[in-house]
């Protein structure tokens, strides 16, 4: 394998691993902050126990998100030096702003939150936990504006042998970036909602701390339902944007080869990239693809044959990832709807089948978000910046195959070990359940009073 392939593989491994932790951080920080808000407003220590229990799981996950994040920043320069040099003028800015406005905030106030229970007032402590989701979501905004620029470059000119920024406002209001931000953070909220519902279901199945976990489940179910609906709506809008700005990606997502009007959707098909056609097309729903692309049943869809072979993304992974993501999204929407209803009606702890499904559903949104990134990134190929720079021109010229083999092997090994430790710790903390001993937190306040 060459440096390009190895570097792409390494970017995939490190970014996908990083993105195991990011979505849960985005959502669970909000849920934890909400629980602490309820505690501060009502004084009910059940909410404090909830904050502690879910917060502990949050922290294990958060730590891995932080440490795997530095790799992402370094990697642009290490493996993608040509890319960094060519687009750094416009791509570097959002990354630097992300660190300045968001990472500092998040890192300082998470420290205050963890170690500050007995050092600051309840309100300041509450403020510090709210600053964490604010900062993590703000950091997501900047990084997704950067990614949105790679998908749909705006506000630049090609000058002095590189892409130079001429309109910062255009970068900020890039519809592709804004849409990606909303769709991505909402999908993170779904991950968190199903994480909390799944672990609550585990304890409800064991008839353990029923009130505590019913209440956790209910909060997460509402959060999950709202986010699922919004993910669905923004997903729909995303498809429209993709059809407009990256027609080759859209054609690959639906595996459309011929340019036609009123294209229907085959529920089953197998793309054949050699023959430039689909095999085993079954169960066609008329006009659906045209409607998804332009919200018009008879709109014309550009087929893959419109694009030279070397400007088409790999069809099979893009198509499969999109289908699976959309399918999982539907399932999760239904599951969260059901969860919202069942958690408010009757004896939830006796619905063992439903609880088992919710427990097993924990990985589903994780898989869906990874698939979403495959659609976004693989579907953009062969471009690293759509229409501006090809991935093959972006790799560092000065690194050798052996260097990247070593780094890829190192990352895989290190991340593998960290992944095992993460699951071990999460499972251990989750199974143990909430801690009733709040002396460390409550005592100093009583003395104060």
């Amino acid at each position: 394998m060459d440096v390009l392939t190895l570097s792409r593989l390494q970017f995939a491994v490190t970014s996908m691993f990083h993105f195991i932790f990011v979505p849960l951080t985005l959502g669970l920080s909000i849920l934890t902050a909400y629980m602490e808000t309820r505690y501060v407003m009502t004084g009910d220590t059940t909410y404090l126990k909830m904050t502690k229990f879910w917060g502990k799981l949050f922290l294990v996950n958060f730590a891995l998100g932080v440490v795997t994040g530095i790799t992402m920043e370094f990697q642009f320069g290490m493996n993608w030096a040509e890319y960094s040099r060519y687009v750094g003028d416009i791509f570097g800015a959002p990354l630097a702003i992300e660190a300045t406005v968001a990472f500092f905030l998040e890192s300082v106030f998470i420290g205050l939150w963890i170690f500050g229970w007995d050092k600051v007032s309840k309100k300041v402590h509450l403020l510090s936990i709210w600053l964490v989701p604010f900062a993590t979501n703000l950091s997501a905004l900047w990084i997704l504006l950067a990614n949105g620029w790679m998908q749909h470059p705006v506000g630049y000119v090609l000058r002095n042998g590189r892409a130079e920024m001429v309109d910062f406002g255009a970068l900020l209001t890039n519809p592709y970036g804004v849409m990606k931000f909303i769709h991505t953070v909402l999908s993170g909220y779904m991950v968190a909602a199903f994480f909390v519902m799944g672990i609550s279901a585990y304890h409800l199945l064991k008839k353990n701390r029923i009130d505590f976990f019913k209440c956790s489940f209910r909060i997460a179910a509402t959060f999950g339902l709202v986010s699922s609906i919004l993910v669905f709506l923004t997903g729909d809008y995303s498809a429209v944007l993709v059809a407009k700005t990256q027609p080759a990606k859209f054609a690959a997502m639906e595996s459309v080869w011929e340019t036609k009007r009123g294209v229907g959707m085959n529920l089953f098909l197998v793309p054949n990239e050699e023959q430039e056609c689909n095999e085993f097309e079954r169960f066609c729903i008329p006009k659906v693809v045209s409607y998804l692309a332009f919200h018009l049943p008879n709109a014309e869809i550009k087929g893959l044959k419109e694009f030279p072979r070397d400007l088409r993304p790999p069809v099979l992974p893009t198509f499969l990832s999109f289908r699976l993501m959309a399918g999982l999204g539907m399932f999760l929407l239904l599951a969260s709807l059901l969860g919202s209803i069942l958690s408010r009606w009757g004896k939830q702890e006796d619905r063992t089948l439903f609880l088992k499904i919710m427990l097993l559903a924990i990985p589903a949104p994780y898989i869906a978000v990874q698939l979403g990134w495959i659609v976004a990134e693989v579907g953009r190929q062969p471009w690293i910046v759509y229409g501006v720079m090809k991935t093959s021109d972006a790799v560092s010229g000065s690194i050798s195959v052996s260097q990247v083999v070593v780094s890829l092997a190192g990352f895989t090994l290190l991340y593998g070990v960290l992944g095992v430790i993460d699951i071990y710790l999460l499972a251990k903390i989750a199974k143990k359940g909430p801690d009733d001993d709040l002396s460390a937190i409550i005592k100093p306040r009583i003395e104060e009073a």
Partner: protein
Amino acid sequence: MEFQIIWFVLWGVLWSVYFMLDGFVQGAGMLHHVLGKSDGDRRVLINTIGPVWDGNEVWLVTAGGATFAAFPTTYALMFSYLYSALLLLLFALIIRGVSYEFRGKSEGELWKKGWDASICIGNFLPALLFGVAFGNIFAGLPMDAAGYHGSLLSLLNPYGLLTGVLFVMLFAVHGALYVSVKTRGDLQARSASLAKKLWPALLAVAVAFLGYTNFATKLYDNYLSHPVLLIVPLLAVAALLGIRIFMAKEMLLTAFASSCLTILLVAATGVTGLSPNLIPANMDTAYSLTIYNSSSSLYTLKIMTVVAFIFVPIVILYKIWVYRIFRAPVTLDEVLENKEAY
């Protein structure tokens, strides 16, 4: 003032503050076993670092991001040329971060010993690697039109290694002083006495570094042509001597402040000497990366300047506020009593 110069100064400030803040984390971490004789000691050490390590590391992320945004060509070449060294650095920083967060979240002798070891290695390696990397940057990298002609091994030249040892010693003294300020009792006494013992070695390495720099680099050229700049290295030496004087007077907090100043001024000395280069080429200076030939466009620099001038002061304010909240020393009783402790 030219925006390139503003960003060069900011670039220098970001690295200096990073070394000042993460320096004591790395120093305390590499002395984890020397200072932490018992599990209790080690938990106290970890709890002095726990609230701040992440926030300190962000200065590195910001320094990297600022290099990317303001000097993209330097970012691209520096990071790809120093690939293997940065890889080791990443691995070290990753394991160090999770060590602090995970050590207290499970039990068992092996679990604790494993994380203790990675705290030590994960803090020692960055200190050494940053020193080696910056030593080589001071001396210039072997690069020309054909690209880079160095390797991980070629970075380990005598001057690079000496700078590595300088960073290790600077951070070790700095870290020991931090622990002496943040703890009480036996641990405090031992860390203060260790800082005292390490200081002569630091002085010897610093003298060797200042002498060798004259032969290995062109850092002194700027000082010879603008003697007024000599105030920076002179103040660095004064701050270094100040550490010893304040330690002798048992003024540990002032000694630590002096150590903070030493690191800021040592970094400033290097950066001032580099100017206007970010990375000099040691084969043909025509290929040096300067603040002019590797910078972003004026437009981008202006935008970034506005962002930095608004947000960096805000960051500094809330960081100082939170440091003040955690200013009290960490004691074993408190750690044992508090279930939130690491």
